[in-house]
C-alpha cells in the first residue's frame, strides 16, 4: 500500500496574530511580543545615538537633537513610551502569574468552566485601565512639552 504523507497544517507565525475568536489574554500576549520587538528596534537606534553621536561632541549632539525634534520622531517617542509602560506592566503581571503566585489553586471542573486566568480577569482589566490612563498622561506631556 502506498505510504500517504499527511498534510502539514500549522498556522505558523500568523497563528500568533489570529487563530480564532479568543479572549483578552491571547491578545495581551501578542501585544507584549509586538511592543517588545518595537522597543528592541528603538533600543538599537537609541544605543547608536547615545554612543556614536554623544561621544563626538556638542555640535553633532545638538544637530541630532534638532533632527529628532521633528513631530514624527516625537510621535514615535510617545509610542515607545507607551509601549514601555505596556510591556513593563504586562510583564509584571506575567511574572506574578507565570510563577503561579496569583492564579489560585486547582479546583474541580464544574460546568460552566472558569479557568484561573478568567477568574483573575478583573485584575487584568485594572492593569489595562492603568496603562490607558498613563498613555493619556504621557500624551499630555508630549504635546505640551515636546512639540
Amino acid at each position, binding site marked *: 500500500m*502506498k505510504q*500517504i*504523507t*499527511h*498534510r*502539514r*497544517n*500549522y*498556522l*505558523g*507565525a*500568523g*497563528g*500568533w496574530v489570529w*487563530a*480564532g*475568536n*479568543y*479572549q483578552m*489574554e*491571547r491578545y495581551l*500576549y*501578542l501585544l*507584549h*511580543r509586538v511592543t517588545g520587538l518595537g522597543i528592541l528596534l528603538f533600543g538599537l537606534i537609541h544605543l547608536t545615538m547615545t554612543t556614536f553621536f554623544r561621544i563626538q561632541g556638542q555640535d553633532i549632539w545638538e544637530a541630532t537633537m534638532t533632527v529628532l525634534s521633528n513631530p514624527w520622531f516625537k510621535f514615535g517617542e510617545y509610542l515607545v513610551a507607551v509601549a514601555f509602560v505596556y510591556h513593563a506592566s504586562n510583564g509584571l503581571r*506575567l511574572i506574578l*502569574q*507565570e*510563577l*503561579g*503566585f496569583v*492564579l*489560585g*489553586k*486547582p*479546583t*474541580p*471542573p*464544574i*460546568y460552566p*468552566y472558569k*479557568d*484561573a*486566568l*478568567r477568574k483573575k480577569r478583573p485584575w487584568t482589566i485594572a492593569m489595562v485601565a492603568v496603562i490607558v490612563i498613563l498613555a493619556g498622561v504621557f500624551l499630555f506631556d508630549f504635546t505640551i512639552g515636546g512639540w
Partner: protein
Amino acid sequence: MTEVSPEQVTFKIQRYNPEGGSPPHLQEFTVPASKGMTVLDGLIYIKENLDSTLAFRTSCRMAICGSCGMLINNYPHLACHTQIEELKSNTLTIKSLPNMPIIKDLVADLTPLFDNHKLVKPYIIRQDSGEMENPTAEFTQPPQELNTFLQFAYCIKCGICVSACPTSASDELFLGPQALAQCYRYCADGRDEGQLERFPVVDTDHGAWRCHLAGACSEACPKGLDPALAIQLLKRQLASQAFGLRKKQAPSTVASPPTETEPKVPFPEFTAKSSK
C-alpha cells in the same frame, strides 16, 4: 402539536483527499437542523444522506473520548459537544484541527500529540522498582492531596489545547499544553517520585519556558482542565528545583493490609428452606 420545520443550515466542510493531489478546499452541504442538534449530528446526517466519503472521527458522542475535535467557525470545539444553535449562525465552517497534520477531510493526525505526551513519562514513577513491577497493594492518597491535581487528570487528549496554543502554531518542537499539563499532573501526584526524571524533559528550549500565558488552551479546553494553570504551577516547581527550594516530601506509602475484624452482627440463618 404544531410541527416545527427544521431550519436549513449550510455546512462548509474542509475536504482533502491525500490521494487526490489537490489542496484542501471547502465543500458546501445543506443540513436540516433542529433544536438540540449537535454539529456531529449534522456531520453524520451528511455522511448518511449526502456524501458518504466524508471522513471524520467520532466515538462516544458525549465529550469523553476526545475523538471529534474540529475547528468550527474558527474556534476549536468537540463536534459532539457543540449545539448548532449555540453557534448563532446559519453557516458553519468546519475544518480539521490546526497545528496537527491532516490525514483526510476532518481527520487530524494526533500522533505528534501522543508522542509529546509519552515524552513526559505520564505514569507513576517510584524509586522502589520491586513495588512497581510486582505491586503488593495500592498507594495511599488522602482526598486533600488528590484535589491538588485532580482537575488536570480529566484530560481526554482531544488536542484542542494544542490547536489553540499560539506557540504550537509556529514551533513544531514545542511540547504543547497537553503534555506540559500532564507532566504537572504526575509531578504533583503524591504517589510519584519521578519529578527529577521529568524535569529535564520540560526544562528545554522548547519546553515549559516557551509558554507565554496566552491562556487560549484553558479557554478552549472542553473539559475545563485549565492546562495554563498546570503549566504555570509546573514552572513554579521547575524554579523551586533550580534554586534548591523544593521541599522534599516523602511519597505515599503502600497501603497496609486490612486487619481482621469480627462481624458485628451474626449472619442470619436462611429462612427459606430449599425444597427437596
